[in-house]
């Protein structure tokens, strides 16, 4: 199966690989997927407490090229967004941007889940109720 140029670019030059301090109050961490499924994504956001803007985002992913590219792209999109706007990122936007084939759509779903999971972690840490996910992926 051939990968799109954008997937290859993210795979070869992943954006924002790394780890933020998960114990910090302004950091939200999402860990989704499972080793037995062949995909695990960890996505972290750091939110500016004053402005509510995501000032940093990092990821680490165990998975195929499409999974790596989806999470790399997600961190790129998250930086500079408000938490509320970040919640609007839809997996189909990722599919479109990376031209993912149907068999790789689950990679984009996982990235969306990782974003939501990171945001909820941040919200809970800061005394807010987690957002109910209206899209049931599992």
């Amino acid at each position, binding site marked *: *199966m051939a*990968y799109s140029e954008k997937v290859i670019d993210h*795979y070869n030059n*992943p954006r924002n*690989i790394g*780890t933020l301090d998960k114990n910090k109050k302004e950091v939200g961490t999402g*860990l*989704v*997927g*499972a*080793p*037995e*499924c*062949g*995909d*695990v*994504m*960890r996505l972290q956001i750091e939110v500016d407490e004053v402005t509510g803007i995501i000032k940093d985002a990092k*990821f*680490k*992913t*165990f*998975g*195929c*090229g499409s*999974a*790596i590219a989806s999470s790399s792209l997600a961190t790129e999109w998250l930086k500079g967004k408000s938490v509320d706007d970040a919640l609007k990122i839809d997996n189909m936007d990722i599919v479109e941007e990376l031209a993912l084939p149907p*068999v*790789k759509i*689950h990679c984009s*779903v*996982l990235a969306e*889940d990782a974003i939501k999971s990171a945001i909820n972690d941040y919200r809970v840490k800061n005394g807010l109720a987690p957002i109910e996910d209206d899209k049931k*992926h*599992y």
Partner: protein
Amino acid sequence: MLKLPIYLDNNATTPMDPRVLEAMMPYFTEIFGNAASRNHPFGWKAEEAVDYAREQVAALINADEKEIIFTSGATESNNLAIKGVFEMYAAKGQHIITVETEHKAVLDACKHIEKLGAKVTYLKTNEQGLITVKQVEDALQPNTILVSIMYANNEIGVIQPMKEIGALCHSKGVLFHTDATQAVGKIMVDVIADNIDLLSFTGHKMYGPKGVGALYVRRKNPRVKVTAQMDGGGHERGMRSGTLNVPGIVGFGKACELCKNEMQVDTERIIKMRDRLEKELLVLEESYINGSKEHRLPHVSNMSFKYVEGEGLIMGVKNIAVSSGSACTSASLEPSYVLKALGLDDELAHSSLRFGLSRFTTDEEVEYAINHVKEAVIKLRDMSPLWEMFKEGIDLKSIQWAEH
């Protein structure tokens, strides 16, 4: 001069040896006759060529040329053996024994006859990928008609105890079939010594052409027959109808002859390269060889690099053609059933690469593969959350994963 990409997927198929192509060439245009045409020299010449190839093919497995039934490949041979034996001997019994790590051509043929009333026992392998003769013996029933066990596995290359199983089957009067697709031409296969009654193999795994294979069907002690699975002109002693693929058969014959003559020299060289590849890749932390090292084909290596996903790894070594036991592309997301049968953790099964070397593999190519696989594993581990957790001493099994 190193030519990229490098082909290390020789268990999928091998390139054809140029000497094989040379032998085949006249049979496309000049000597094009139908081997079944008995009335003119065009047919006679084609038949002569097929007869000669039949001898070459038979000689490689120590069979008689009359025992070779040409087919389109090992999938057809396996189907013919299993379905054909079941149809021919169903009155005698309906029980068949096979192994859960067989190729799909065997497993699905077994599933097919199960629908027709057959009872099939699927033996489990140990963590090395091997079964024992005791397991076969324990599974035998009074109505067992066939034991079908692959000679060597296509994913991990492990070799089953054929001689012992053959002797057991022979003593119990049960037919013994083997899918020897990966073994023939790579190691010595002897149908007499191993008491094999039916044996499937194919040209394209041993430097011959695609689209041609054979089923060995024993003619004496015991005389074995299989019911044809295609109706037609009654070619191949009535067991496989269809005009013979003369150029393919000539190429298959030549490939068998070359393997017989060169196997020993090839093996010595290939095993050195394979061992070097493994030794150098095992330097990487948390890397493993899958399957028995002791009972294994010389040209195969199946390795897992823990905490790195196989398909992602293949993308990182794009100039090296290998295959992975990971199945990220399949709808089920299930990793290789062979690796799972060995009891491998899913994350190890997802982290595997299969290297298959050949007669044409060079030291330079092996060195390139070593360097690039190492590089890619290190790069991907740097971006793997599982590797980070491992390094922090977190037990991955202690985490509640959200399975999707």
